[in-house]
């Protein structure tokens, strides 16, 4: 059988399917009532909850900054962490907007592009957390002030401050290297591929593979 014979067999199959298939309308009606449970709707719910969490963090940090306003290490730490929380909140709002705009009637390549952006969310959050790693002392300074009402920075010796600054600089270099390497094009590298699978899951790696398959004939 060649592809043309296959086409003619397919046409026969399509005609016969009209008689062979029956649609369970009762079940369809029941499922219709549950239509809200589509996979994308579940994602909108989880992004909304995540966005609410970022919003609460932003509000709490802003309240802390206003109430303790001074040029101290804990307040500067709160400002830095608030910037990250605002970026996270903006990312979630962007995701919810995009999820509501996704149209499965668009051409396949466009839908794939939109879905890749949606499914890359966990990777973006991971990158955001990684970017905050060089500022790890911000968590410590803020925590000490909230729990013990202590400005740890003012109690540190100059050597300790330099040591922590050096560690932060090392983190900056590592994070910059990791983030620049952490792109779909580098999935040939085992570590990057593993990170993509672990952080973003099989759904994203599958979509990226299919996007490569779309363009494959061009190469």
């Amino acid at each position, binding site marked *: *059988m*060649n*592809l043309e014979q*296959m*086409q003619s*067999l*397919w*046409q*026969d*199959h*399509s005609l*016969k*399917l*009209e*008689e*062979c*298939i*029956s*649609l*369970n*309308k009762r*079940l*369809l009606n029941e*499922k*219709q009532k549950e*239509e809200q*449970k*589509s*996979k994308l709707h579940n994602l909108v719910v989880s992004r909304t909850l995540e966005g609410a969490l970022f919003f609460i963090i932003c509000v709490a940090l802003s309240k802390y900054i206003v109430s303790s306003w001074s040029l101290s290490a804990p307040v500067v730490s709160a400002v830095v962490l608030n910037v990250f929380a605002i970026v996270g909140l903006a990312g979630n709002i962007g995701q919810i907007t995009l999820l509501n705009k996704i*149209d*499965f*009637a*668009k*051409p*396949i*390549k*466009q*839908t*794939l592009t939109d*879905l890749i952006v949606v499914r890359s969310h966990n990777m973006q959050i991971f990158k955001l957390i990684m970017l905050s790693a060089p500022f790890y002392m911000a968590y410590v300074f803020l925590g000490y002030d909230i729990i013990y009402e202590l400005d740890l920075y003012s109690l540190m010796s100059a050597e300790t401050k330099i040591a922590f600054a050096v560690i932060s600089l090392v983190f900056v270099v590592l994070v910059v290297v990791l983030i620049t390497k952490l792109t779909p094009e580098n999935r040939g590298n085992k570590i990057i591929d593993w990170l993509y699978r672990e952080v973003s899951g*099989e*759904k994203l790696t*599958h*979509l990226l*593979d*299919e996007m490569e*398959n*779309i*363009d494959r*004939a*061009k190469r």
Partner: protein
Amino acid sequence: MPFLNKSEVKVSKRELFLELVEKHKGILFKVTRSYCKNEFDREDLTQEILAQIWRSLDTYNDDFKITTWMYRVALNVAISFHRKDKSGAFKHYEIEDKLLSYDMNEEAENEQSIIQLYTFINQLNDIDKAVLLMYLEGENQSEIAANLSISISNVSTKISRIKQKFQHSAG
């Protein structure tokens, strides 16, 4: 639907949806059978496609044939559906209440060829499955290119590669 109130629009959309699904249920069957190897995934994928058809119905415009539009929605959902194949785990179970029931007896004379055809389609990657399904439906290369948003030459290359794979698999 400019002169209808909200509840009338909903009833009208519902009727249109049911009519559309009833008329083109074959598309649902062919896409789910091509993209899923077990009944449980097929049932889930059918539900997901129906949910997206309902959702996208508001934005449908008659620039496209309804079958082309439905194929696009179904293929987009199928490509994004991806699950690990668990056919082995489900082989002893059956779904009692299915959205689409299929009686193969009607096609007994072609049964083997059709099984062979679906087996071949199942082996392809998701994009090649989409290209082949549209090709088998009789869509021309420019229509397939528009549905995928790629060039006609890219479609042509994909079709010839699928032909080669088919000849190779047929021995």
